[in-house]
């Protein structure tokens, strides 16, 4: 199905929204991703992912509170929708299945 494919980065963003639970907004997600992946994450790519995930129906958003730090601008807070949760679960079970199917010998075998 077109549009439901979850890219790697999108999956990470989606998970981060879950982690941050009720304070998931662009900058917070960026910070969280950066601290966890130790990679440089640009704000624009996070926003891009958020917009796409919302379009796919995995996220929904509402306007959150402003703060002085943000120059008085409101936050756009994201929450996981059921289909978002399902997509994460699916992705996880896909991985689990695939993990399970890797023969043990692969892990136990010597270095090539």
């Amino acid at each position: 199905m077109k549009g439901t494919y979850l890219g790697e980065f999108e999956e990470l963003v989606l998970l981060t929204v879950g982690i941050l639970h009720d304070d998931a907004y662009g900058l917070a997600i960026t910070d969280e991703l950066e601290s966890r992946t130790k990679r440089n994450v640009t704000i624009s790519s996070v926003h891009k992912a958020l917009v796409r995930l919302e379009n796919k129906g995995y996220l929904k958003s509402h306007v959150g509170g402003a703060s002085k730090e943000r120059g008085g601008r409101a936050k756009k807070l994201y929450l996981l929708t059921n289909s978002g949760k399902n997509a994460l679960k699916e992705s996880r079970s896909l991985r689990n299945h695939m993990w399970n199917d890797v023969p043990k010998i692969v892990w136990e075998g010597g270095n090539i």
Partner: protein
Amino acid sequence: MSELEKEKRNFRKTPQPPAWAIKLLRWFCREDLVYAVEGDLIAVFHRRIKRMSPTKARLLFVINVLMFLKPFAIKRIKKTKKMNALTTLKLNLKFTFRNLMKTKVISSLNIGTMAIGLMAVILLTSFISQELSYDKFHKEGDRIYRFGYQIESENQPTRKLAWVSALVAPSAIEKFPEIERITRVRNCGGVMVGPNNQFFREENGFFAGDSFFELFDFKLVSGDSPTSLDEPNEIVLTQELAEKYFGEDDPIGKFVEFRTGDTLKLKVSGVVENTPSNSHFHFDYLISHKTREIIYPHIQGWFALGTHTYFRLQENVDSKEFERKVENLVMDAYGEEALGMGFTIKLFTQPLWDIHLRSDLGNEIETNGSISYVYIAAGIALAILVISIFNFVNLFIARSIKFTKQIGVKKVIGVSRSQLIGQSLVETLIMLLMAFSIAIALSYLVLPYFELLVSRDLSIHLLGVLSLSSIGLLLVAVGLLAGLYPAFLISTFKLSASVFGKTAMGRQGGNLSQSLLIAQFGIATILISSVLVIRNQLDFMTGSSLGFESEQVAVIELWHNREVRRNTSVLKEKLLQSPNISNVTSSNSIPGEFLLNRVGYPEGDDTKSKVMFSLLVQDDFLELFDLEIIAGRGFNSEATTDQEHAFLLNRTSVLEFGWTLEEAVGKDFQWGSRTGKIVGVVEDFHYYSLQEKIPPMILLQTESGVGYMSIKMNGEIMNTVEYVQNSWNELYEGQVFNLYFLDDRFDEQYQLETQLNKIITLFTLVAIVVACSGLFGLTALNVERRMKEIGIRKVVGASLSSILYLILTRFVRLVLLSFAVAIPAAYLLSRWWLSDFAFRIDLGPMTFALAAFLSLLIAAATVVLQSLKAASVDPVKVIKYE
């Protein structure tokens, strides 16, 4: 320090991200995202300035903003809406054509009448632009003027002539350095003999010279332009004439013979382009002025008129001031003598560009147009345009009644008001486009006939009028005027009512239609009464007696036949032998032709002298033209003294000398150098036309100097003309024979009025057709709206006539109302037009009553047709519907 102020100070102290970057972000970023992004970026900025310099933080802020320049964040351009507009248009077109097909009759009426109206506007506009273009091809025409004589004397109205003496030109250019170029033009006609001995009578030529080609922009196609008319016995031909006599050969340097009293051998020194149709005078050839001085040395002196003199002023010369300076040129030349003449001649100047439309002097070269006719044409064009637009609106509204259900359904589905208006406008536009195409095609079709009607060459101007921009402009103007109101009105059709098949148009629409109808019929009534007034005046002029007999009087010209001029009696006797010829006489002029004018006064008292139109006649002139002697006697051929010493004066001159009729008879009188007695007084007669005042006139007997022979015929015109021609050929073989009938010649004088009559009649018909179709549409609407009411009335027992009455009264009331405005307007217009005529009809109430009656009749006829249909409808059918 309050909390707030502290915060403010703080704000100022802490660096802020660049405002322009925020503006940029807000400009391109989606609204549902922009606040979040902005907040995030600002938060990052504040975080950064703790770690790095503000400049670097700002730079990074800008980079961050720019990174949002990606499709996901950019505002959507409203693509979807654009596609909607296109599909709407498609849908509009579809509905338009469906609606057109559904209402074939009324739609074609709507388009057809608009097309006819527009055709009339296009034709009239091309006529107007032709009239306004006269003489504009002379590039420096704004500095070209014409001299004229203004003759003033006591107790007499001032006369203005387009003619001056041939002496004016040389004298003026010598005295006034303001004149850059000056040229004289004098009509000369005669018989031209080409190289192969072809004889043709060529009337349309001039003696011209001096700087003719430097003053005017008539283009020489060959020959040496400035000097082409410098030498005696030189002639310049138009291309047309050159081809006629020389065919393909180069005519330059060749000779033609020209007979005008004398026989001249003229060398062709140039070929000029044919005179443009929009020139106030046309010529086929020009003979050098020096030739004239040789063959007519006697045409000298300040009273020898017949020359038109044109000049061009230097740049920046004030023409009014110049006119004051030249005014007394003639009288100064006379010096002391001038005082005794009893009248003064002033020179006046007249701009070239005023000649065609604003000059109506005596002795113009050609009959000019008239600015009042341009106004009339413009007025008719405007009237027809207005009627057409009103009509279009009325019919369009009437037509849309048929679509109330369609509009209702559309509204139910949720079509917005602006879309309904759009539909209406598209429909208007399509119908107008059709009307325009038909109008343009019609104009081309009708143009040749219209050109004949107005005797003008209009094809160039039609193209001008039909230029894309002017058509586009007209289309937009008419479209807006005709389209907007119905569009709004239709879009307000009440939803509930329209679905139930009621007409549902508010009172508003009805009121508008009614006022438009009143205006339409008002205009039509004005046009009809104008037609009647012009007809009456024309009938009055052509039908009312000029004061002499002109029926069945044929005239032959004798100017070029020396033999007959020496002795007219041979031909006269020969002609009188025919039983169909009752009388023959000769004279120096015949009514309608140029009259000699010379000064006359009571003998011995030249202070009372007057310029008198002088008619030199032979025996039987008074009898043939049936001139009435009101005092004294006529000429007596027995009395030999009459030959030299008898004068007849007309009533006007007797009164102007201050005598009674009886006093005049027997008075000693002097005319030029001739002295004698006044033997009688003749009743006034119109020598030129009823439009002119009767001048003082004198009749003398003569043996020589005649130029015309008048022949009174009775019956058997064709045979008699043949007899005259045969007699002529028998007596004077090889001489040019030219015969015409006097009343034909006179009718030509009313050419302008006759034309106007035809034009206005034609376009009034157009206006009436258009107005009637509007009325037709409105009645149809009204009847349709009241169909059920009529059905019920019939069921209850109303008679046919009472239903007719019901519908008729409404429209008759409207038409009557329109008269209230139309008739006073028509009266004022007619009075304005008639004020041009010296002798005119009285504007009685009958004319206007007739006009009103006619338009009422036309209106009633249109309505009755429709109402009859309504009244004869089967009530069961109309009532059961629904």
